[in-house]
C-alpha cells in the first residue's frame, strides 16, 4: 500500500514538484539525511525519463509516482510508453559521451540512466503488471 501517491501531467514543470514530494516523504519516513540528495536526483531522473517518453509518444496520460515506507523507502515511477522504448537503456562511457555524432537527447538518456544506476543500489526497470508501460522501482533503507 502506497503511503503517498502522486500523478502529474507529463510536463517538465511538474518534475520539480515530484522531487520535492519524494524527498519530503523520504525524510519523514526516516531515510538518512546524507542520502536525501541522491533520493532527490534519482526521483527527478526517473520522472524526467517518464515525461520524455510520454512526450515522445504523444501521450497525455499522467505519470504516476508511488512512495511507500513499510520497512524501507520504495518509490515507483510509472510511465505508459510502449515497453520497447525502455530497451537499450545503458550508461555511456567517456568516448561515447564526447562523440560528435551523439545527439543531446540520446546523451541525456544515457547520462540519466548512469545517474539512476549510480545512485540507487536497489534499482529495477521492468514492465508494469497492468497494461502498457514501464516502472522504475527504487528502494532505500530506513534509518530507524
Amino acid at each position, binding site marked *: 500500500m502506497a503511503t503517498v501517491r502522486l500523478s502529474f501531467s507529463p510536463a*517538465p514543470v511538474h518534475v520539480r514538484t515530484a522531487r520535492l514530494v519524494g524527498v519530503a516523504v523520504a525524510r519523514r519516513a526516516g531515510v538518512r539525511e546524507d542520502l536525501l*540528495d541522491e533520493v532527490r*536526483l534519482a526521483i527527478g531522473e526517473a520522472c*524526467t525519463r517518464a515525461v520524455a517518453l510520454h512526450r515522445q509518444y504523444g501521450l497525455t496520460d499522467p505519470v504516476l509516482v508511488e512512495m511507500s515506507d513499510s520497512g524501507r523507502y520504495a518509490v515507483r515511477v510509472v510511465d505508459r510508453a510502449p515497453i520497447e522504448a525502455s530497451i537499450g537503456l545503458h550508461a555511456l*562511457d567517456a568516448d561515447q559521451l564526447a562523440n*560528435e555524432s551523439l545527439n543531446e537527447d540520446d*546523451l541525456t*538518456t544515457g*547520462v540519466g540512466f548512469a*545517474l539512476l544506476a549510480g545512485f540507487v543500489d536497489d534499482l529495477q526497470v521492468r514492465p508494469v503488471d497492468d497494461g502498457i508501460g514501464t516502472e522504475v522501482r527504487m528502494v532505500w533503507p530506513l534509518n530507524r
Partner: protein
Amino acid sequence: MELSLATRTVGEHTVLEVGGEVDVYTAPRLRERLLELIDSGARHVVVDLGRVDFLDSTGLGVLVGALKRLRTVDGTFALVCDKEPLLKIFRITALDQVFPLHPTVEAATGAGA
C-alpha cells in the same frame, strides 16, 4: 530555487555564472543562453556552477552540447565546480573525463580554458 544566469568577462573568457536548479524544466533557458553567447562570438566559455544546488541529466546534456559546439569553432569550454555532490555526478556519469573541471574561476581562466 529558480535558475539564475549572469554573464561576465574575465580576460578573453566569457564566464556564465549559473545558480539554482538546472533540470528538465529550466535547462532550455541555459541552452538558449549558451547558444546566444557562442553565436555572438564567445569562444572561450567558462560555466561557473558554484551556486547550482541541483543538476540533472538534462542540464548535463546542455553542457555537453555547448562543449561540442565550441569545439567545432575552435573554442574552449570549462566548468567551475567545487561541490562534492556535483563532482560525484560528474564522476558517476564519466563526464569528469569529458569536461575540464576547475575548483575556481581563476583556475579555469588562468589554465587556458
